[in-house]
């Protein structure tokens, strides 16, 4: 369980998150949606403890960050470190034994090559593999589907379902609504730093239509394409 109460975050005079109250339960997958700059990544970074904040974040396991696998939007890689060494680094950090990677390399990554030479999608898959092998209880996946190929997309969707079945708490942000529809139990729209009431599975289609109507409106017509 992750219990967030009255969470606010300011960057100087700019208030990015405003009095957020949410509770994330074990064995559930939560989607956070919002426009670019809505505060999704900041919310994730606050939960992870990478940002200072006002308010309270409590969890069943303490400190939360020691049981949390965080997949950033744009994972960072050292210039001369192989995929295998990257996984080893993250396993060492959590005092986990380095597993036999032959069978665990589900994305067929070239683990003996420098990770910095990987494509965007491969980097994402490597970072995801590493946090999975850390055996975390909570997962924050910031844009996990960005840049990955269709085959890996299917694997990631199934992975999220497996994590849910194992009783893990999973938080996802994605701009691809179909993947959220497929994986999430609840979706929280984030707008101007505020969380709107939760949307449950039965209302996902309505939410999608509302987003489309709000986002597109008559904007395409404004272009007067000929």
């Amino acid at each position: 369980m992750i219990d967030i109460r009255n969470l606010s975050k300011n960057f100087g005079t700019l208030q990015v998150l405003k009095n957020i109250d949410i509770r994330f339960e074990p064995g559930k997958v939560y989607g956070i949606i919002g426009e670019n700059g809505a505060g999704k990544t900041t919310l994730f970074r606050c939960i992870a403890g990478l940002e200072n904040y006002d308010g309270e974040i409590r969890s069943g396991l303490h400190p939360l960050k020691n049981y949390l696998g965080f997949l950033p939007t744009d994972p960072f890689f050292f210039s001369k470190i192989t995929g295998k060494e990257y996984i080893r680094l993250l396993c060492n950090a959590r005092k986990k034994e380095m597993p036999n990677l032959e069978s665990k390399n589900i994305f067929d990554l070239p683990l003996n090559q420098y990770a910095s030479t990987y494509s965007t999608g491969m980097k994402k898959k490597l970072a995801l593999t590493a946090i999975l092998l850390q055996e975390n209880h909570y997962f924050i996946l910031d844009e996990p589907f960005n840049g990955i190929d269709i085959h890996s997309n299917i694997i990631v969707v199934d992975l999220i379902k497996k994590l849910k079945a194992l009783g893990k708490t999973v938080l996802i942000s994605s701009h691809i609504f179909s993947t959220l529809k497929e994986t999430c139990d609840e979706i929280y729209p984030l707008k101007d730093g505020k969380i709107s009431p939760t949307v449950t599975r039965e209302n996902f289609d309505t939410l999608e239509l509302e987003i489309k109507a709000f986002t597109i409106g008559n904007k395409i017509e404004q272009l007067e394409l000929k």
Partner: protein
Amino acid sequence: MVAYIKLQYLLTNRKLSAFGVHPAIGYPLLLLLFIGLSTYLFNKTTFAPYAYTLIALYFTAKLSEIRRNDFLKICFGRIQYRKIRLLENLIVVLPFAIFLLYKEHYIPPFLLVATTILLALLNVNITYNIPLPTPFYKKPFEFTVGFRNTFFLFIIAYALTAIAVTVNNFNLGIFSLLLIFLTVLCYYLKPENEYFVWAYSATPAQFLIEKIKTAFRFSFYLCLPILLTLSLFYTENTGVLLLFTALGYLYLVAVILAKYAAFPGEIDLMQAIMLSITFIFPPMLIAVIPLFARQSVHELKRLLP
């Protein structure tokens, strides 16, 4: 090209300001620091011209980074790119070359300038897709990455040890040992992405102890061939050898702690001054190490509660 140079000037000014120094003071200060350190180096050792040339080449090599140069190639035409590279390389090596000439060394500055021009004009674009094997692969990342970037310096250090024994020059042997320690110290100068600190399930103290333990163990492996050779051939100087090794380890602790005392930023002006003082007056390490230790524990508390 003028716009690019102006932009570099602006970036340097910003770096100085971020370091806490006004550019108007920063540039003269840098010049004074350069002259001071150069004079100190030349007064301390007879091998200064070689060390000095290596340092200058190190800075030039930093400008030859592939991705940076690919970006320059995209932005500018081929001729403009070459001009920029040549100008940048010369700006870096000329102060070193001038000081070498002032100290009446004529071959090293000539070689330095020639190498620099070659580096700027040749299209050195070797992409290593096959990772260099490293004995430090089990404990990423500092020594894993560092070894791959600086392995040639270890070859030089071991060669210098062999020469030291051949020409019966113990001081040269000590210089090779210091070269290892200096190289290793460089692994800890830049802060890593905070994700790689956050990822640790450890308290700040446990984290720092782990980092220091790893640094000690791997530095020992790197120094071992030199320590064994010198203690075998210069038994009477074992005390001096142990003293320099102990100093090397103390500096290693100081630099690691200084890095995390400034984390996630880079080592600031005050810390740099304190570290510089310890290099001139080593007993200061007794005061500096506990101070950096307290600061680093404090800074790491945010990421490692």
